[in-house]
């Protein structure tokens, strides 16, 4: 396997925003323990601005690092801006990911989308979030 970048290792060893937000305005859980990663992302929103984000993740080094990075990236952004954060942006902010670990950045994007979707639903407004039909990643062949 390719090695992790120093940025990934930094976020893995000292992840930012670990924890729960008990009165979160949006919560999203994605992934599958069978595949080795589950992410739960909490957001707190005030006047359309994400004031806080926290996560809990079961997963490998890349899964923890992408969770840490995506929660960093959304803080201070409006929900509209957060919707535009892509997996590529998360991976890029971490100085890249090994090819076999790109699915972790996809999972981070999905966790964020899922939390935003929950936020809109809780607010009672139509959700503009498009959740991909099959969440998670395809298994490669051996």
């Amino acid at each position: 396997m390719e090695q992790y970048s120093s940025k990934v290792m930094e976020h893995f060893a000292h992840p930012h925003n670990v924890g729960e937000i008990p009165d979160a305005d949006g919560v999203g859980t994605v992934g599958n323990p069978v595949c080795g990663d589950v992410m739960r992302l909490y957001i707190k929103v005030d006047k359309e601005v994400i004031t806080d984000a926290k996560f809990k993740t079961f997963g490998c080094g890349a899964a923890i690092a992408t969770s840490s990075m995506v929660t960093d990236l959304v803080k201070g952004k409006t929900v509209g801006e957060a919707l535009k954060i892509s997996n590529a942006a998360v991976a890029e902010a971490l100085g890249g990911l090994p090819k076999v670990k790109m699915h972790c950045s996809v999972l981070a994007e999905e966790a964020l989308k899922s939390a935003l979707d929950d936020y809109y639903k809780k607010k009672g407004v139509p959700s503009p979030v498009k959740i991909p039909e099959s969440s998670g990643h395809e298994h490669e062949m051996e």
Partner: protein
Amino acid sequence: MRNVYLDHAATTPAHPKVVEAMLPYFTDKFGNPSNLHDIGREAKNAIDDARAKTAALIGAKPEEIFFTSSGAESNNLALKGLAQANRQKGTNIIVSQIEHFSVLHAAKTLEKSGFTVTYLPVDKQGLVDPADVARAITRDTVLVSIMHANNEIGTIEPIEEISAITREKGVLFHTDAVATTGWIPVDVKALGVDALSLSGHQFYGPKGAAALFVRKGVRIKPQIEGGIQEDGRRAGTENVPALVGLGKASEIAAADIPRRLSSVAALRDRLQKGLVERIDHLVINGHPSRRLPNHLNVSLWYVEGESMLLFLNMEGISVSSGSACTSRSLKASHVLTCIGTDAAVANGTLLMTLGMGNTAEDIDYVIEKLPPIVQRLREMSPLYEDMIKKEKAG
């Protein structure tokens, strides 16, 4: 910082005496064993000596040892070579589902050329039932291949019982003894096998030197052709220094196995006890007693293996993980799946394999460092959070 290497199933360091024995064969004694002049003969004598020592370690005759480059090559040669050379006797092969991929993939290749393969299941402790082997053998069966011990969970298979069955039915029997040779007694006569794979770097020899034992009189088709080396069964100029190293490692192991068995097993038991006492929701994989003396394979619920491995590495501790995330296929270990480990739990698996260099202080250091890592990762885990909430809800 302390450095604790607990990944001896991946590879071992070469013994200093092994390196010492090898060195002259890179420079002064550089000859090609196929040449008749003195320089060539010197190299030929060296590999003859290595062959005799390797044979002595497993109770074989020197002419029954064929040198290869790796355990994977030995397994490929055994499966394909024995099946192809004895095809007129039948085209069915029997293997266990927990074999190393070098056996499983060789079997898959044979399936593409008209062989049928029967894959035998194992029980929750990883044991093959000899009665299953007896039932699976048909008039068309030509070869059975069951590993001596599993390289991941360490379970030692009932090879003697299986060989009694294959002998009675007149079927060839190969065993992959890469995980056992040099660690526990391996005797081809006692095991009753027709072919056996071993690899030098698994027991303090160099990488690139391995062997396949083939009982005298058993036909095998070469997989690398074009030379007279290894009695025509494996072409290519011999890796003389590495083979000298394999011979030396075999000689050392033959004298050292009783000590390896007792001292390493005591440390392994200390590690197991220490971890079981300090970490809840922990499962020991493999057989409780029929297990390699240096193996400890544990699944820890609600945490993922690679993240544990990386944190242990930061503390100077080297282990392996059975998690999906470290494999290209993103699938958990096929061995854990076969013994019925829940796929999610399998992802939280660590394989710790001890060696002669480990001390009680090393083990106590691991017992001290692992529990807080597990705790930290569990506090980060949504699965652990869900479990705690469920427990509270009663």
